[in-house]
Every structure is written in C-alpha cells, then in structure tokens.
C-alpha cells in the first residue's frame, strides 16, 4: 500500500526520513545563500529575474536553513535520541512520518512563495499565513510525539538532554505563534518588539536548547565518558530558560523603544554568560582525557568544533549586546558574521555530527566513505572560518564608516574584496554539503554502505551510557 509506504511505522523511519529531508533542504538553503553572496560580490550577475534578486534569495536562504535544514534535522535527531534515552519506542512512527511530509510540503511551498516575493515583510517570519499554520501543526505533532514517548519511558530519571527537548518543544511553538503576528497588525514599534522577541528566541528557545541537548547526548556517547556534572547541567538549563527569552530587544537598542525594555535585554544578554560557561565547562570536563579521539572519530570532531564555535559565539554575543559596543557595531556585517557563527558554526555543526552519528544506527549501514566525511569537515570548517573573517572585517570597515559619518559612497567599494572572499567561503561550504549529501546517497541508497546490522535497528535497546 502506498499509504503504508509513505506513512511507514517501521521503527526509526521517521527519524531517518527527517534527517535525509533536512540534508536535502540544506543544499537548497545554503545554495541560495551562496547565490545571494555572489550577488554581493558581482551585483550584475543576474538581471530581470525577480526570483534571483538578492532579497528574495535571502528570504529563502534564511527560512530554508532555519526551518528546513536545522529544524527538520533537530526533529529527526530528537526522534532517535529520545527513544534511546528513554528506552521506549517513539510513540507513533506514523505520526512522525506524517509530520515529515507536512514539513516537506511546507518547505516546498516556502520555496515557491518566498522566491516570488510573497512575504509578510517581517525578518525571520517571512512565511505566509497558511505556511505559518502548517509550521505550528508540524511543531505540535512533533511535541505530542516526543511528550508521549517520554510519558511511556522505561527509565525513570530524565537525562539533561530530555530536559532541553522538553523545554524547547513547549517554548518554541508558543514563541512561533506569538512571533508570527500573522493575523494581527500591531503599531510599528510594538511589532518590532515582538518581532525581535521571536527573532532572538527562535535561536534561544529552539536552536540553542535543542542544539545543546544534542551536545549533551553526543559527547558522553561518543567518548564513553560519563557526564562531568549533572548539577552543572541543571544550572545551565535553568540559566538558559531564565536569561535567554527577554534578550530580543538588544536588536533594536538605538530605536525609540522603551528604555526599561532595552535595560532588561542588555542585562539578561550579559547574564547569559553564566549558563553558557556552565554548559561549556561541563562539556570540556566531560572531554577530559578523550581529546585525542577527535583526530580519528569524525563525528566527535564535528561535535567538538561545534562546542568551540559555541564558546566563541556566546562570548561575542553578550559583549556586542552591551550599549556601547552595539553603538559601534550595529547595522554591519559583523552582526551577520555573528549570526552565522551561531547557526552555521555551532548548530549546523552539531546537527551534522548528529546525522553522522544517527544515520548508521537508523539504517544499519556504516558510512560509505570516511574520506568524504573528512573532506566535509575541512571544507566546512575552513570555509566557515574564512566567512567569519571576511564578514567581521567588512563589518569593522562599515562600523568605522557609519561611526565617523563618512558617506557610504566613499567606502562601499572598499568592501568588495570581502564580498568576494565571502563568496569563496560559500562555495567551500556548499561543496562540503554536497559531498555530505553524496555520502548519504551512497550509504543509504546504494550497496556501497557497509551493512553493520541486518536486523531492524531498535533504538530503544541502544545502550545508554551517561
């Protein structure tokens, strides 16, 4: 039956399908980003094609990597991590696969609408009304599935990753509903306040919480070291829950919104250093004695890289949220660099690690090529470092220009080398992602993948060592 094929109830199929879809959309999303970055370097690259104009590509780029690649990958990862941590089967594989199809439909519609300029005009909330509803439905289906799995769990104690997933799946649907403003028209600045509440919390209450939960899962698993401290992990969790949500207004610090709101945003941004340092101390202490594994174990290498980028992004963030640094750096490519450091450097890396860790266990096949994984890591790491350097430098040039009141015509041309460097970095990253996709195709759909387990893998019986 077609329905049985599409809505399979084979164990692990929802997670596997979600991960593969995520990688599929990552290529479109990162490709759109690359295309847009080339248009920064060569503005006359394309003419008269509205779908390929830079702002349309950017809308699709942001939504495809955030809602497509990262979010789908996160859901896929939770679908295999939660059963493994609770030793219970996923509550409903059928519902999971249904969610997967709904999400893919959503992304296909996003591709069709955003590139044609059907946007709500709100940064990070561009998707149209119907697609917003579809996202919420998909998120609620996911939350229901994970919560019911946790209710049926065989291990009484909840591991810290589960706390993060539990929190994220409660927070994020609400943040999304509040943040869309699809059916309300608020006065301009109130619109902006809610817009940045959402814009920052899609990061704080979803990408960070699930991403950190995945780090907590992967590090002890791969290194076979017990988690350094459960007490610290709880402190980190509640710190993020408390201090992340009110920070949004630091995106509009110099606009005429209420000063008390700006004060709350700046103070909680700085307080974020506490949970971040707690979490990272926990990670790096867990790694104790196992750092050399990063040389041979590529999944671990992706995880460590992600943790290190997390350290950088979360030290950068609180400082540039303070008023005086923000005064100088706001409105520039520095901020774009920071955003990529979080979403590409940290969360894309941890998701990649999760796919490299999860897919063999979900399909029972070992990766077809370790060389391709190695190439992927090098391309992505070097490409991203180059991107970070070029965007940060371009941002400092822009900052100086705005700060000294020099007309933009006088320094806009100075940025060209950095746009070109950013384009090159984009080519490296997309190339890495293509190798990643090729490796997945080779492993899953051809006979090159070495079968390690002929039986249907049972996640619920996978060993828990944490």
């Amino acid at each position: 039956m077609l329905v049985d094929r599409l809505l399979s109830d084979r164990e692990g199929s929802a997670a596997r399908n979600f991960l593969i879809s995520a990688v599929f959309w990552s290529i479109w999303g990162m490709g759109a980003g690359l295309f847009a970055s080339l248009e920064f370097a060569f503005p006359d690259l394309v003419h008269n094609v509205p779908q390929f104009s830079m702002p349309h590509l950017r809308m699709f780029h942001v939504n495809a990597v955030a809602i497509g690649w990262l979010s789908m990958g996160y859901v896929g990862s939770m679908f295999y991590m939660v059963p493994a941590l609770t030793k219970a089967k996923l509550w409903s594989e059928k519902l999971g696969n249904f969610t997967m199809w709904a999400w893919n439909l959503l992304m296909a519609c996003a591709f069709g609408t955003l590139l044609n300029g059907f946007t709500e005009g709100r940064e990070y909330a561009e998707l149209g009304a119907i697609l917003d509803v579809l996202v919420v439905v998909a998120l609620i289906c996911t939350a229901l599935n994970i919560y019911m799995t946790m209710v049926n769990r065989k291990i009484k104690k909840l591991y810290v990753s589960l706390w993060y997933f539990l929190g994220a799946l409660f927070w994020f649907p609400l943040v999304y509903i509040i943040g869309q403003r699809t059916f309300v028209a608020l006065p301009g600045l109130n619109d902006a306040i809610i817009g940045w509440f959402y814009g920052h919390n899609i990061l704080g209450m979803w990408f960070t919480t699930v991403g950190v939960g995945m780090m907590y899962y992967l590090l002890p698993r791969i290194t076979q070291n017990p988690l350094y401290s459960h007490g610290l992990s709880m402190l980190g969790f509640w710190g993020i829950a408390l201090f992340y949500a009110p920070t949004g207004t630091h995106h509009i610090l110099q606009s005429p919104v209420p000063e008390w709101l700006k004060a709350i945003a700046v103070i909680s941004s700085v307080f974020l250093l506490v949970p971040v340092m707690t979490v990272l101390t926990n990670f790096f202490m867990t790694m104790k004695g196992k750092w050399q594994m990063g040389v041979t174990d590529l999944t671990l290498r992706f995880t460590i890289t992600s943790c290190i980028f997390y350290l950088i992004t979360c030290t950068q963030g609180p400082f540039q949220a303070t008023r005086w640094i923000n005064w100088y750096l706001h409105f520039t490519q520095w901020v774009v660099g920071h955003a990529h450091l979080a979403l590409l450097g940290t969360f894309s890396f941890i998701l990649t690690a999760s796919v490299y860790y999860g897919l063999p266990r979900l399909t029972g096949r070992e990766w077809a090529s370790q060389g391709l994984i190695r190439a992927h890591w090098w391309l992505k790491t070097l490409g991203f470092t180059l991107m970070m350097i070029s965007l940060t430098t371009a941002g400092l040039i822009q900052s100086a220009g705005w700060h000294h009141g020099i007309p933009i015509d006088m320094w806009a041309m100075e940025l060209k080398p950095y746009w070109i460097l950013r384009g090159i970095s984009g080519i490296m990253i997309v190339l890495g992602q293509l190798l990643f996709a090729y490796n997945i195709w080779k492993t899953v759909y051809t006979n090159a993948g070495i079968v390690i387990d002929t039986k249907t893998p049972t996640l619920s019986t996978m060993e828990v060592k944490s």
Partner: protein
Amino acid sequence: MNGINGYRLGASGIIITFFTIITATVLLPMVLFNPTKTTSANAYKDTPYNQVADPERGRRIYVREGCVYCHTQFTRLQDRGYGPLVKAGDYVSETPHQLGTARTGPDLTNEGGRMASEWQKAHLVQPRALKPGSIMPSFSFLTDRDMNDLVAYLQTLGNGRKVTTYVQAPDEYEKFLANRKVDTASDAAANAGRGIYTQNCAVCHGLEGRGNGPNSITLEKKPANFTRAFYKQYPDAFWFYRVREGVPGTRMPHFGEILSEEQMWYLVAYLKTLPKDQEEVINDISQLNEVTPAVKLPRLTNQVYEPSTGGAHSGGEEHGTEGPNGEDPGNQPQGNTPGEYVPSKAAPPPETAPAPAGGH
C-alpha cells in the same frame, strides 16, 4: 503516567518561567508602550504623489522586494547626514515595521525629496549607472506601475519630519560676541583678515573659498565651499565658533589654539566678504585654482513623477519649481540629467520597465 509525578516541579518551572518572561517582555510593552501618533510620522495620503502613484501600495512593493534587508528606517543619535531623529510616535501606522537591522545601503528614514523621482527610478533600474560601486541589485523587473508606486513611497519617507533648528554656537559665544573689539562689517577688518585666511585657511578651502585648496584632494570629507548660499546666513558668533573649535568629524583644526581672539574676528570679517557662488567639486589636479565659470548643477527637486504616456517617460519635461538660486531650470547640462542613463549591455530593460530615458 507513572513517570510524570516526580517531574511536576520541573515541568511547572518551565511553564512558569516562560510565562513570566512573556508577561514582562511581550505583554507589558504592549500595555505600557503606546506612543501617540506624532505629526512627524510619514504621511502617505494627500501628498503630491497621490495623483500619479500610490505610496501605500509602494510600501507593499518595498516589503515584497525585501528592501529592509539592506536599508534601515531609523536614524540614530550617532548618525550624521541622515536628517532629523525619529520619535517613537512616528511608527504608529508602520506595519509591518521596516526598521531593519543591517545597513548594507544607506538609511532611508528621510529619503523623500533627497533625489528627483527620475533619479530614484533610474537608480532602481540600474544603480551602478548613477552610483558607481554600488552593490544594490537591479530592480529592472518591476512593472512601471510598481516602480512608480515604489518611488512615490520613497519620496514620502520623512515627509513629516522637517528641519526646524540648525546647530547653534554654544551660549558662551554670546560673551565672545559682546567682548569683540573688531567691526566685522568693515572693509578694514576684512582686509586684515585676508592675510590670515591666505596663511591658515587657503591650503584647504582655496584662495577663493571654494573648498578647492591643494589639500582638499587628499581629504575624505571635502572642505567647506564658502561660496555656497548656505554659508551666507551664518551669524558672526557661529563663524567664530567654527573657526575657534573646528568642525567635528572633519580635519578642520581648532584655530583657537594658534590665533588670537582679535585675529579670528578679522578672519570672520573676511569670510563674510567671500562671493556667493555655486558649489563645485574638484576631482582632478588640473581643476585646482583655475578660474572656472559657475557650474550649473541639476537641481534636486521634489518634482512629481509624471505619469508616463506610452510607456516611456520624457526626461526633457523636467520643469519644476524654481531652483534654489533662481537660475533658469532649462540651463541644466545634459550630462547630469537622469535622461542620460544608458542601460548596461548585460541587461536591456524589459518592455514593462522602461528606463526613464527616451525623451532626449
């Protein structure tokens, strides 16, 4: 449901934390922060543009084309040259907000009236024809109606915000004015100032005060051209203030440190005698210090974009209000009108979006 009981506390913690934060940072601002609409907000109705285009529809085009990703719409305290500062009440009817977070291009808060509508339209079709080095994408795919509405919207930006006060000399300069011993209106004082000007000022501002001294070529912020009409309304105290303390953000030095008070007043007397002329820009060493006839630059008007008849707009119809100095508007050099715009070979403008050329 055996597992849930032990974790009630944690789960309710997650819920309570979240709703506390929502209350503090989302609901509270909605209740407490309700700025009343100010008169300086952008007006989209009853503007000169409503007869030919729809600025409100233009705003939707602005949203659709994603202009917000590169152009911001709020001026900050530290911004220079972007016009009056915005107030909270200016944004009451701006939904969805287009504040923006990145300035890859200039701020557009007070863009209205800065450039002629023809210029704006040509710039949307091929930005690099008018601003070399710009990386703005070409919006040549917009239909003529979309383009007109978008330009009408751009021309209404900041139309509620009028400049009412200029920078003024600090209060202490009234004291300097009261204590001065030089009659700044006398020829004798101006003659005494001439030598001081030649020795100290001409190297940047030029012998004729046109801002074209030899140093000007190396300066990023060009020295002031004192022959512009703008400088003719400076009061004595303000001249004295600028001479004594320099101009922030430029290389203009603090002459209070090397000139005596009397010398500076002589200088002010001389500066007031400089002739009134047109602005000129020096791009080449050969242009320096040669007596050139007054250059008639095209005027930047608030002129309404004429509805196109038969698709193409005639650039020759550019007759608007009287220029700032009352010169004949017909005397504009051909090379500076938007009509000269020639689309690049790579992108012939389509039938639907003609360049505002044609008429010549």
